[in-house]
């Protein structure tokens, strides 16, 4: 992976390295983010509501998600008669793939040979913004392809919500890129050797976190799925493994957002004593815990409140924050 940049490796070595890295990241996301994430979500939800959560499969219910996956594998694969079969089937691949592509630019740690990252792209942050914007297309495809009223309303709501929150997220990304003077994620982590950007830029951090929660359609911004009104939103019609792939995409995207927040604002893998990868994991799970905590703390927004919040609060604040930060950077530099 992003280890020692040996210039003259033969092409098949590079090919196998790339394939091995992909398989590693894919299985990591599937097991650590999706399977363990679902379990964690259920356990933490249980803990916050003073109940136990899954308990019976394996020790303390640890194998619950594996049992769920095996169950989903045996489920029937139903395509509704009225659905548009091509779009219905391909949406399943678009959503998880767009989420997975985010992981290319996330530095998980550092070793003696250099940062542990799939590829340190020159335009890392922009790449992240671009790939996560592709999720919207997948969601619209799923919502429209199902030919189901709940699914279509969920898809449309989701699309307008996600595009609205892309703007404040972009403003937060730009603020960080301006401070670090680079779009590469590794350089941004390096620039946080002194202070974390969460300390220098608490406002941008807050904006990024709020936008991240909205981008992954979680409570309090989950009116896309709003189970009490829209059943399951855009994936109402999906059964069995296709449903599981949407879950993979959703949890993969959530972990990617948290990992990006760690990289941009919490100093990435940096930390004393413990090995860098461990630090990264600790910070990642701390943020994931915050996401789950928020879920059980706030009620769901209405769509007008949600869009107002993006356009009339977050974007003006983000713009102002950018200008003020730029001003201070200029003053300090003179």
């Amino acid at each position, binding site marked *: 992976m992003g280890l020692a940049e040996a210039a003259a490796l033969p092409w098949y070595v590079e090919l196998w390295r*790339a394939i091995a890295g992909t398989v590693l990241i*894919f299985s990591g996301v599937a097991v650590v983010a999706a399977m363990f994430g679902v379990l964690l979500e259920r356990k933490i939800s249980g803990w916050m509501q003073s109940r136990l959560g899954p308990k019976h499969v394996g020790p303390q219910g640890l194998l619950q998600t594996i049992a769920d996956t095996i169950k989903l594998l045996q489920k029937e694969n139903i*395509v509704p008669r009225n659905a548009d079969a091509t779009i219905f089937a391909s949406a399943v691949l678009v959503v998880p*793939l767009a989420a*997975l592509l985010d992981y290319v630019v996330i530095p998980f740690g550092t070793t003696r040979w250099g940062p542990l990252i799939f590829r340190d792209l*020159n335009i890392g*942050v922009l790449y992240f913004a671009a790939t996560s914007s592709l999720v919207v297309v997948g969601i619209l495809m799923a919502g429209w392809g199902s030919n189901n009223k709940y699914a279509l309303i969920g898809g449309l709501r989701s699309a307008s919500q996600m595009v609205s929150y892309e703007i404040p997220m972009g403003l937060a990304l730009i603020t960080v890129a301006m401070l670090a003077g680079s779009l590469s994620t590794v350089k941004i982590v390096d620039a946080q050797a002194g202070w974390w950007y969460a300390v220098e830029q608490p406002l941008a951090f807050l904006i990024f976190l709020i936008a991240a929660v909205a981008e992954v359609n979680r409570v309090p911004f989950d009116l896309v799925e709003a189970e009490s009104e829209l059943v399951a939103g855009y994936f109402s019609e999906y059964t069995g493994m296709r449903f599981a792939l949407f879950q993979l995409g959703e949890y993969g995207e959530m972990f990617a957002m948290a990992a990006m927040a760690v990289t941009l604002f919490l100093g990435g893998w940096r930390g004393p004593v413990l090995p860098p990868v461990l630090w990264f994991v600790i910070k990642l799970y701390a943020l994931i815990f915050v996401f789950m905590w928020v879920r059980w703390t706030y009620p769901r927004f209405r769509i*007008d409140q949600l869009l107002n919040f993006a356009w009339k609060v977050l974007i*003006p604040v983000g713009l102002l924050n950018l200008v003020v930060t730029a001003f201070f950077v200029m003053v300090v530099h003179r």
Partner: protein
Amino acid sequence: MLLDWGYVAIFAIVGTLLAAMPLLVIWLISPRSDYPQKFETYESGVPAIGQAWAQFNVRYYLFSLVFVVFDVEIIYLYPWAVVYRKAGPVAFYDMLVFLAILTLGLVYAWRKGALEWV
């Protein structure tokens, strides 16, 4: 640089294949039934009336319209942000003018009610 993107391309291709694998598995092992009501559109148990492919409200369009314009504005800030630390105060005033015009657009959309969900 091309090597980097070669990796990304392989990531995309292999990732698609890996994501498609469970679909192949269920195609092989999942049960099939020909019970016709299973293929009905789900509407909480009530038979669905008409298609979902009906018309929707124009509000969705207004938001995505404002979004496209702002998204384009933001892409111009990325290259600006990269060079800002090395550039002089000129960069700051450039950005100020740029954002002032952008803010005019936001204020206009706000005043005209394009950001209202009514």
